[in-house]
């Protein structure tokens, strides 16, 4: 006979083991859903793109300067779309990167704890505004403003969308920068102050260099958001794929083109239809590599102090 103390050591009854197993399987299934979806999307992208690249050579696609899948003669040079995306991304970076960094510095190093406790949640709310709202904001507020300042501005233009995208990604930059500064150990600040550093020197020459990889990671993540941003550019930047560096003209980004084709009456199975996947694949590759870069930088950043 086993005593009760001995009995306690043995495995529970079979029904309990079965329950543990069921829960485990359920959790694994949930995890699998997201992985399988992602893989499936990539597979579809690759498959459909392959159909496109049977008709159009990748070289022509990547180096052509005219994008006209719907007109005769057809032309599949993706550069105008890439250029449009680039205009918006660079413009939004000009708005968001410096302003976000400065906001992050203020929040972490200058704001009193009480001010910070108010501002930080507000920033996070800002990050939750639907992008369609930013799109209307660009169209009905920023564009008229630009037209008033620069008379040649077109009704749809890259600059207006870029500013709105910049405002949209600013909270993210500010918030990640703030986190990066907060992660700098206070003992470093104390050490600097004890050497007779002024606050400006502590911030610019101790905290900022120590948090630099976090700042860069926030930049890369923000740029990746800007590249993939769709609603704002669809509403405000126009639908005119052209190779231009003038931000006051109408352009078309890769994302806006995808929206246009998805909504339009492009017959499935045609080359025009397959452009959707080719452009989507290119977009995916760009944002994916940006995210990988950001993750790399963040990992380095985490290792810096311990």
């Amino acid at each position, binding site marked *: 006979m086993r005593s009760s103390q001995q009995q306690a050591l043995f495995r529970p009854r079979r029904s309990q083991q079965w329950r543990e197993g069921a829960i485990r399987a359920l959790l694994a299934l949930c995890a699998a859903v997201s992985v399988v979806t992602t893989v499936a999307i990539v597979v579809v992208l690759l498959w459909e793109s392959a159909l496109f690249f049977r008709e159009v050579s990748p070289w022509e696609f990547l180096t052509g300067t005219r994008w006209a899948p719907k007109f005769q003669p057809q032309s599949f040079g993706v550069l105008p779309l890439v250029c449009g995306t680039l205009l918006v991304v660079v413009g939004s970076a000009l708005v968001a990167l410096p302003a976000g960094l400065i906001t992050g510095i203020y929040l972490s190093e200058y704001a*009193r*704890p009480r001010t910070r406790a108010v501002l930080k949640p507000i920033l996070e709310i800002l990050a939750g505004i639907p992008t369609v709202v930013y799109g209307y904001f660009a169209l009905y507020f920023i564009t008229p403003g630009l037209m008033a300042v620069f008379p040649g501005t077109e009704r749809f233009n890259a600059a207006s969308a870029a500013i709105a995208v910049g405002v949209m990604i600013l909270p993210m930059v500010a918030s990640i920068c703030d986190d990066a500064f907060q992660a700098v*150990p206070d*003992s*470093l600040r*104390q*050490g*600097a*102050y*004890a*050497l*007779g*550093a*002024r606050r400006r*020197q502590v911030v610019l*020459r*101790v905290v900022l*260099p*120590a948090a630099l990889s976090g700042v860069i990671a926030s930049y890369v993540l923000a740029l990746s958001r800007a590249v993939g941003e769709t609603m704002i550019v669809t509403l405000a930047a126009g639908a005119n794929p052209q190779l231009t560096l003038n931000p006051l003209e109408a352009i078309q980004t890769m994302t806006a083109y995808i929206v246009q084709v998805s909504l339009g009456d492009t017959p499935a199975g045609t080359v025009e239809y397959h452009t959707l996947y080719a452009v989507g694949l290119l977009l995916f590759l760009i944002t994916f590599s940006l995210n990988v870069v950001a993750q790399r930088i963040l990992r380095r950043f985490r290792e*810096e*102090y311990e």
Partner: protein
Amino acid sequence: MNQSPPVEKDAPAVPVLQVQELTIRYGDKVAVDRVSLDIPETKITAIIGPSGCGKSTLLRALNRMNDYIEGLTMQGRVLYRGVDLYAKDVDPVQVRRRIGMVFQKPNPFPKSIYKNIAWGLAINGIRDGVPQRVERALQQAALWDEVKDRLHDSALALSGGQQQRLCIARALALEPEVLLMDEPCSALDPISTARIEDLLFQLRDTYTIVIVTHNMQQAARVSDYTAFLDGGHLVEFGPTEQVFTRPKEKRTEDYVTGRFG
């Protein structure tokens, strides 16, 4: 080198720092309660007492390192050579340049050994003879021989004890008059601790040193004067030898003999 320091009874030393009726509160909590204390020149003064007795807070008040602590209020005065450190037109940056500080946990910057010291010189506008000053500071801190061949390696690669000596070198490079040390050995092993104590003996003639320690043996070994703080009150202050062998207060006696704390 380890004999107990001589105490001049007839020639009172000139006080460099005078703490007068100093009270420091965190919100409503009193951390330092009406403390008055004269810190003598070119001597080592130890501040001892149980955890939470206010000794670090008191130390940090001596070079205005408490300025950035939210909710901290002060009453009373801290005089440096007769000047109130908290007077409106006193620049805290200049205060900290003359009254340096070394912290509990070594906190070198994530830069090279050389730059750790050169940085303090640069922000204080010292541009002449920087390499010589770096070398002198490292020699004063008894670190030069260990690091002279790898000055441009990261300071974070040094051992804890070396890092702490680097932090001392960093403070000494600015040629301060007073050096405040907040439990500088509490994160170090006994060998590193012994090296820092040796270093203190070498610095004693040149600098006025105030050291906070929870290690009574350390206070007895290195200091000329000892202040015993308990619950924010200054219980006793006097020559170390007297405080440890013939304390005037019962509470001091209980503490230094290890009956509490």
